[in-house]
């Protein structure tokens, strides 16, 4: 039992300190449902939502880096109301708390998002994603707007380059917890088009920068700190805990080795890891030995398919 956000009228309690980072896992459990046991995670953080729908960016969006990748999506999302319609019922049925990531576009939009999500049963907390250029004043306004519209616990995800001052501002403005840090932006040349492309950068190298920022913020913060950036193994995750984080968010390794997210969660959750010996070739998959997937799947033989669920409940009118 980990109290993930500052104690108060509402606080988010999770069983396991490991969760995916916003933007890596999808809007609900679907993309990774067949690949990992979501129930073993501490929580799920959704892809970023904005008040209005956003479409995907034009031009190259995924460009390889040495030992990493640059991604520029333009934050496509259906907008908050349509996302609630599409995913709200699944969030309500989730085995683990669902934290909805809200992009801090403007105080007014954040207020609208908070208000809509506050009435959505499956939402356990909001994570506010600050923009790279956010100032401490912006943070105060954004948080005031959110707090006026929801009692849900508020996590604030802080950009790497401004981690200390923005974390301080978020705590002063009433944030329930801090997520350190959103990955930085970079520019690289796309080999296919020859263009210079900007976007967020992901990869194991990021860990050193994020770990330092996490340590710095943990030393000054009076509220829980969640570490994030370049975590690719249980040992990486433990380094963030040692630097003062209460929990961690795992990012791009979920894309390259999906089972690793579950392995990290099981490992930090104190579950024993064993490597399966003698599993049949068509039963065995990488990482499976390290989990109890075989047993889980056998147990499912008799159970009804998970998709066989009641249709989404109608939502209360706005």
């Amino acid at each position, binding site marked *: 039992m980990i109290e993930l956000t500052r104690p108060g009228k509402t606080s988010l309690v999770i069983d396991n300190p490991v969760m995916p980072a916003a*933007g*890596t*896992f*999808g809007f*609900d459990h*679907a*993309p*990774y*449902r*067949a*690949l990992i046991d979501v129930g073993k995670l501490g929580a799920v953080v959704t*892809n970023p939502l904005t008040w209005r729908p956003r*479409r*995907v960016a*034009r*031009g*190259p*969006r*995924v*460009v*390889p*880096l040495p*030992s*990493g*990748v640059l*991604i*520029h*999506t333009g934050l*496509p*999302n259906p907008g908050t109301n349509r996302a609630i319609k*599409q*995913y709200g019922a699944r969030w309500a049925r989730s085995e683990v708390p669902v934290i909805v990531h809200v992009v801090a576009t403007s105080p007014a939009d954040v207020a609208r998002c908070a208000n809509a999500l506050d009435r959505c049963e499956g939402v356990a907390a909001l994570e506010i994603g600050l923009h790279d250029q956010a100032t401490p004043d912006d943070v105060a306004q954004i948080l005031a707007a959110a707090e006026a519209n929801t009692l849900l616990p508020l996590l604030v995800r802080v950009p790497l380059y401004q981690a200390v001052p923005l974390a301080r501002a978020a705590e002063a403005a009433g944030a329930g917890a801090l997520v350190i840090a959103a990955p930085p932006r970079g520019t690289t040349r796309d080999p*296919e*088009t020859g263009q210079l492309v900007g976007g967020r950068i992901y*990869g194991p190298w990021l860990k050193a920068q994020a770990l330092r920022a996490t340590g710095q913020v943990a030393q000054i913060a009076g509220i829980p700190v969640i570490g994030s950036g370049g975590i690719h193994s249980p040992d990486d995750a433990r380094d963030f805990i040692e630097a003062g984080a209460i929990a961690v968010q795992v990012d*791009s390794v*979920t*894309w*390259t*080795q*999906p*089972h690793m997210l579950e392995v990290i969660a099981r490992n930090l959750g104190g579950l024993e890891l064993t490597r399966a010996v003698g599993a049949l*070739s*068509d*039963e*065995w*998959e*990488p*990482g499976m030995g390290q989990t109890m997937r075989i047993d889980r*799947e*056998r147990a*499912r*033989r008799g*159970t009804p*398919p*998970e*998709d066989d669920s009641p249709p989404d409940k109608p939502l209360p009118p706005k």
Partner: protein
Amino acid sequence: MRIILVWTVWSSGVRRGHQDTWANLQFYPARCTLWPMRETQAIIERVRRVSDTLQQLHLSVDPSLAQAQAGQSLFAAPLNGGESYLREQWIPVGLREGQMVVEIPSAHPYTPGQVVSLLAPLGRAIPLRPHLQHMLLIANDALPTPFVWLAGDLCARGAAVTLVLGGRALAYPLELLPAEVEILRADTDWRWPDQVETLTWADQVIALAPPYACAEVYAGLYDTISQLRVQNVPDGYVFGLYYYRLACGTGACLACQIPGQKYDLLACTDGPAVDLKKVAFR
């Protein structure tokens, strides 16, 4: 084991809440939407250099992949880390004697005996009209590897296949294609002999453009076809293949999104073949 897998799946259509996108295409291979991506391992049995720039890897794959169909691909990573951080999309050119053969650039150094992790199947089978007689395939500035398996299947069941090659596609070694395929050569302006005739002859058209040109090329093709067909272009008639560079391959990151008329689509889970009638060209 395979049966269990069917139980555990959330179908790709269901999971992003737009079942109706495909609902009117009755001829879709229904099985594919029920068959989830799994992580398995494969052994590289043979590495065959097929041109200056291409190699074919013969893979011993998990038996479950025997169900894969033309259009589906593998999301691969060498077990002990490779050159690239992200997984690579490996496109099969056929299933032979229990081995899957993929065709990839020869720049990547793979050796027989190497073990790779696969997330597969990636994407859906290319949707075919049920009584298809005449298939027109068009590859411009992109090697026609994604057509090899499909063309083989179609020829085997007696359909007539015409393949138009333009630009960089002309560098492709023709001996890798089934001998029955008729090859036409397009000029730099995307014109080929009897263009109107072939387009009206075809029951179905599938085009392939490089990632950075998909929007423009497919919009142009769709325009041309719309002008030829005075009534509306039928559903499931003209498709574009989207081979964007994929980050997650699972539908999580949305980096491969294709803006749609009614619903947005994902190259990784809805593709590679997308009905161009459903695409919103801006």
